[in-house]
């Protein structure tokens, strides 16, 4: 068993008095597509955001490729924030795709993808834009390179956001409900890009309501409910013979909506 890409250990997240995650333990395997599913408010997005250190966990650790991100924690539970530069270095292995795309509105598609190459990696403008263009080709948007986000459809914006993350050559890609704010007819183009990425062997963690995608592309499915990880296993275990009553109930709501043909 190789080192997990991401190891989540006893992760607790509280917002004030509310506990959102109750001690999550989860290993994300290298080179596979892991999906986090669960009802709204189950804590799956918060868990993903903790993995990226966009949220600070209250207790517990996140380990990326064997290196602790965010806060280290001693055996006695003493937490210590790691230096910002260390966290940036470890986080550079992670690419993140957001529900709201979060493209920068004052930059073109090409600008969005090349910006970090120039600002962070100090590449020349030409090298950065060549590399950015190659990424836009990969997501099928070379003809939209000069467009601003406001001039692109939601599906196109999300593909630009994926290209922006991929341009930095991450080892792990995190997707936070990447199709949830898209019109139904636009989800396909984004899911296709994600399928291509999965086929290349990218380590992916996907929070999604796209049960069909989870069932067909996912290789490890984790089910969260009310901040607890109730089940982790292969798609066949989850979808064909769900033994957990809450999971069964959750999946039924999808089957009721006609998603059964996808499973």
């Amino acid at each position, binding site marked *: 068993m190789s080192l997990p890409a991401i190891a989540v250990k006893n992760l607790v997240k509280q917002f004030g008095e509310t506990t959102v995650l109750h001690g999550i333990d989860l290993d994300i395997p290298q080179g596979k597509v892991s999906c986090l599913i669960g009802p709204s408010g189950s804590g799956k997005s918060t868990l993903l955001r903790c993995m990226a250190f966009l949220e600070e966990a209250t207790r517990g650790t996140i380990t990326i490729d064997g290196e602790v991100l965010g806060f280290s924690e001693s055996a006695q539970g003493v937490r210590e924030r790691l230096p910002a530069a260390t966290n940036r270095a470890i986080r550079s292995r992670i*690419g993140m795709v957001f529900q709201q795309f*979060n493209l920068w509105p004052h930059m073109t598609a090409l600008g969005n993808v090349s910006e970090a190459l120039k600002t*962070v990696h100090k590449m020349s403008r030409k090298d950065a834009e060549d590399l950015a263009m190659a990424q836009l080709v990969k997501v099928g948007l070379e003809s939209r390179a000069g467009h601003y986000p*406001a001039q692109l459809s939601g599906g196109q914006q999300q593909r630009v956001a994926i290209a922006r*993350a991929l341009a930095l050559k991450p080892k792990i890609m995190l997707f936070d409900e990447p199709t949830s704010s898209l019109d139904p007819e636009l989800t396909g183009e984004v899911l296709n890009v994600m399928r291509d990425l999965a086929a290349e062997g990218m380590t992916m963690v996907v929070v999604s309501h796209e049960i069909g995608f989870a069932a067909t592309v996912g290789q490890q499915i984790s089910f969260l409910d009310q901040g607890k990880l109730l089940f982790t296993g292969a798609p066949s275990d989850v979808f064909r013979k769900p033994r957990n009553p809450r999971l069964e109930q959750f999946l039924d709501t999808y089957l009721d909506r006609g998603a059964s043909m996808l499973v």
Partner: protein
Amino acid sequence: MSLKLFELLLKASLYTIGISLISILIGFAIAILLSGAMLSGRKFFSAPAQIFISFFRGVPLLVQLLLIYNLLPVIGINVPSIVAAIVGLSLCTAAYQAENLRGGFASVPRGLIESAEMVGFTPGQAFRRIKVPIALRLTFPALVNEAILILKASSLVSVVGIVELTRMAQDLAGSTFLPLEIFASAGLIYLVINLVVARAGGLIERSLPGIPR
């Protein structure tokens, strides 16, 4: 009404434009400091900024101008009235512009900064490349609005002895007995100046990147 009178009004309007423009620019510079202090999250900086803003937004500009004009000589600073006028207008517009800027910075969606963090930006890089340009863009319409307000409010500097457009109109109306024609002309000149400002602002706004035409 003779052309000569209209020329006098136009010349006086140069004072209106000049004083307003300089005040808006100085006010903007002060507003940057003030909004920075308010967003710093440190009471040591934010409390004085808040007091400054409360005062200059809460006291009528006319009173501020009279205070500055009468106060400065008392504390041993003798300045020409034009300086007092510019100081008064600058400090007043700075308070409003600071609030605009603070609002602009607060309105930059958190997600845009998160996406910058995720591609490796330091906080400073995210501030320069993402937060500042977007906040300025969000603030720009309010800045144009403020410029128009200041252009009109500059009529108040006549109380410290500046003969700008309104004061010139008053003087001419008194000496020529043509108040209607003269005040109508003055109003027209204000209107044209502000239309130009509004139009220029609209053009600049549309040329800012990322706003669909």
